[in-house]
């Protein structure tokens, strides 16, 4: 791929946010080049063939949060994106039994009633309250967070807008909102449900990717992620991308190239170049220099500023803040090629709940204990796992009759208390996960043809995410909104003119949402005096 001359902007990293930002800029007429270290694009949203004819979504594995505005504007369906909705989901219990989640409201009520009649009805109150919060937060996703310390008219206007939205909730809901944003998932769920299995099932989504346990204050709002899609009335808010998660990146890439953009893969950026206090381009690892007045980094904030820029180009205080930005590895991933469909005796025949996300953690205590292990620098002895078999719905991913299972694992530390990761430890971690699944599936182990085991350390090395953190930084209160990634720089701009951030380290954070990329592009265009 040739590097075009007269570039307006270089995007460092072809993750989904980098590509989204690139698309928006290219559509506004800028000449944009995307540089990707790997020979393939997508960052953590990739489909890869690592074993025979099996396609793995080997990092992110579910299409849920991608903003509808982005899908529409970038015409992703036209460029090949197809999403197949989940048909259910379930948690299998220790010693048999299960709780399934079904789309149909009556089926779901009767299902929860098997565990608690009261919870089956409290579920409506729960969804209502979570939906109310979603409604409140949704418009903030595609907004630059205002700086509360600033007196600039734009910040004041945005603060006023936020304040007005908050005020419009009415007194009672203002308190509800205040509490919701600061509670732990466990405490929040306790206000609705009595059945352990019901609480455990819902709590799962509050810990995925975070270095917190379900009892940590601030985890309740992560529950929103399960509902954020619903609020857009998008059928199949949670679904599989046909062909794996790489399909999203490929659609973005195609959309970008159709707007005249250029992607160079296999081109690792070594330095962001600064001249006279402003961005002047990038230098690749092989020494090649590419000039551009705008450099937008899709890398996480630590990588961007601590590893890809010169400390002398940045204010010391800012560097201190970046160092204090918490990016913790807490998740692992297994990608497993299976010789057939595993049996789950707890699930009744014909239930569609295996055609969605499956779990085996049936109490909050078990989840919290899994977190305690992580705090002590070891992988959870009884990990929380989120497993899916997308090949049930998308046969293009596997040879006929075979299956692919994606297993997300919480918690797995980046650094082990007993010394660095090695092959034996990685295998032991994988075995822990496989044994956990095998407790619920007697034929599972015999079906395994190949298992790719990925620790946070592996994810960091392959994808470039610091510590393998899937959100490019913890989603805790101190790292959200105007604090994300660091106070004073929450608006996609950096201390160096022309250098921008567009990764999940920025507001509103991670998940394959695309909002940081779109918001960053808007900030760039505004600075250029162009209407986004």
């Amino acid at each position, binding site marked *: 791929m040739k590097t075009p001359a007269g570039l307006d902007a270089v995007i460092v990293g072809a993750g989904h946010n980098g590509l989204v930002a690139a698309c928006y800029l290219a559509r506004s007429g800028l000449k944009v080049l995307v540089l990707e270290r790997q020979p393939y694009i997508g960052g953590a949203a990739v489909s890869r063939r690592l074993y025979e004819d099996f396609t793995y979504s080997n990092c992110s594995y579910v299409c849920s949060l991608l903003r509808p505005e982005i899908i529409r504007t970038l015409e992703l369906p036209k460029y090949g994106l197809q999403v197949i909705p989940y048909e259910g989901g379930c948690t299998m219990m220790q010693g048999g039994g299960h709780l399934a989640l*079904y789309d149909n409201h009556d089926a779901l009520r009767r299902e929860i009633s098997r565990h608690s*009649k009261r919870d089956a009805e409290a579920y409506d109150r729960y969804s209502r309250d979570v939906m109310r919060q979603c409604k409140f937060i949704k418009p903030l996703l595609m907004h630059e967070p205002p700086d509360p310390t600033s007196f600039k008219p734009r910040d004041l206007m945005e603060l006023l807008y936020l304040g007005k939205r908050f005020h419009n*909730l009415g007194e009672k809901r203002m308190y509800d909102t205040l509490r919701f944003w600061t509670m732990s998932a466990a405490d929040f769920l306790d206000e609705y449900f009595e059945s352990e299995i019901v609480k455990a099932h819902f709590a799962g989504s509050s810990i995925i990717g975070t270095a917190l346990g379900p009892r940590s204050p601030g985890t309740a709002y992560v529950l929103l992620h399960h509902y954020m899609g619903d609020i857009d009335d998008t059928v199949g808010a949670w679904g599989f991308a046909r062909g794996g998660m790489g399909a999203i990146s490929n659609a973005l890439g195609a959309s970008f190239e159709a707007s005249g953009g250029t992607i160079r893969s296999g081109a690792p950026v070594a330095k962001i170049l600064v001249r006279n206090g402003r961005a002047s381009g990038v230098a690749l690892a092989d020494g090649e220099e590419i000039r551009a007045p705008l450099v937008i980094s899709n890398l996480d904030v630590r990588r961007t500023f601590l590893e890809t820029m010169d400390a002398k180009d940045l204010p010391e205080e800012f560097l201190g803040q970046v160092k204090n930005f918490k990016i913790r590895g807490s998740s692992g991933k297994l990608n497993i090629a299976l010789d057939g469909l595993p049996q789950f005796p707890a699930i009744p025949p*014909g*239930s569609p709940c295996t055609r969605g996300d499956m779990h085996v953690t049936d109490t909050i205590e078990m989840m919290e204990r899994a977190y305690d292990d992580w705090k002590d620098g070891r992988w959870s002895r009884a990990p929380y796992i989120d497993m899916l078999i997308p090949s049930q719905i998308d046969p293009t991913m596997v040879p006929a009759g075979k299956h692919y299972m994606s297993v997300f694992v919480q918690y797995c530390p980046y650094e082990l208390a007993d010394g660095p990761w090695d092959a034996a430890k990685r295998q032991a971690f994988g075995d822990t996960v496989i044994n956990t699944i095998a407790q619920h599936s007697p034929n599972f182990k015999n079906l395994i043809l190949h298992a790719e085991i990925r620790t946070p350390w592996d994810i960091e090395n392959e994808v470039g995410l610091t510590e393998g953190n899937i959100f490019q930084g913890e989603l805790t209160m101190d790292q959200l909104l105007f604090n994300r990634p660091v106070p004073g720089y929450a608006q996609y701009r950096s201390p160096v003119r022309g250098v921008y951030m567009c990764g999940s380290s920025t507001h509103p954070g991670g998940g394959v949402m695309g909002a940081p990329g779109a918001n960053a592009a808007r900030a760039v265009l505004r600075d250029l005096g162009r209407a986004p």
Partner: protein
Amino acid sequence: MTDSPAPHYKQPLLKTPFHERARALSQIDSFIPWAGYTTVDVFTTMEQEYFAVRNATTLYDLTPMVKYRVSGPDAVPYLNRLVTRDVAKLKPDRVAYVVWCNDAGHLIDDGTIFRLGAGEYRICTAERQIDWLLDSAIGFDVQIGEVTEQIAALAVQGPTSCAMLKAAGLRGIELLKPFEIGYFSLGEHRLTLSRTGFTGDLGYEVWMDPAAAETIWDILMAAGRSRGIRAIGSQALNMARIEAGFIMPNVDFVSAEHTIRTGRDRSPLELGLGWLVDFNKGHFTGRRALLTEKKQGSRRQLVGLDIAGNKPAHNALIYTDDGGKREIGSVTSAMWSPTCKRNIALAIVDAPHFQVGSTVWAEIYLNRELVWERRMSRAQVVERPFFVPERRRATPPAEF
């Protein structure tokens, strides 16, 4: 009760004990879900069924009504704290129409309370409420349990309903007064009847053991043959209830326990149910908020509209009588009333336009062979109900 053989994830909806009978009579396979059951929307045509309600007698499967048994020493204080009416005044074997509110005085649901025996009450409501009912029980010595599946129910409504029930063998049925409960035997089966209903007409609700359901259905259908009996679906019932001025959840109001948006909740005062709110009986949930609303006046109200022309004002927006300068509300239910020969509607209208006698305008869209036309129709705010036949209250009702 006959449970559906397929598991819930294959067939989410339950079947009532009358399902096989209903299916046999259903000509157009028009079923809708209601509170977790599948029920008939229309058997033959909505009009035929509606005319049977007003001119003959009808059977309507009420089984999906959610039923709760409330008992225990604190049953009365509990219910009194729950609903806005004074339950202490409810005499044995009587039924009361009630509403209950959240703390903000906004309606959660309406329903009926049956006083069955010493310290035993039954709440009937259209939607499930156990979450709220149990939280309301904190601090009260009561037991609350859902009994929906243990009781099958039929609404028997229409001018010949009393005569038909008498013919079926319910002796003394003609003496049952409105809102009264009576106990009868039909062969070996024990039936509980209440003179209640959702049609605003002469009518009864029959409560029975699900095992007896099909037998009772057959007996009533046979007894009613010469009195024009017809099984009806929800559509015909909906027409009758609009004429009777009754409100429907999720149509005329959304339960305050379900609203997502701020400001979509409705208070009983706004819904014209102020007569159900007893401020003198002691505390009940929402009382303080309702007192404030009463003092300050409601900002909007549900009213009856009599609209010019004969085109039903479905979903119409309502405007002021000054050339329609300001939007002041919207229609929640509308129909051409075949009995009253009036174009009627229920609508939420802002203050002060909700006063009876006010003139407002309804913006009606008509689909005339796929061409949409907009009509601004003049409408009067009128008293509800739109239709109140003498026979509704007469005891004994006239012979047919």
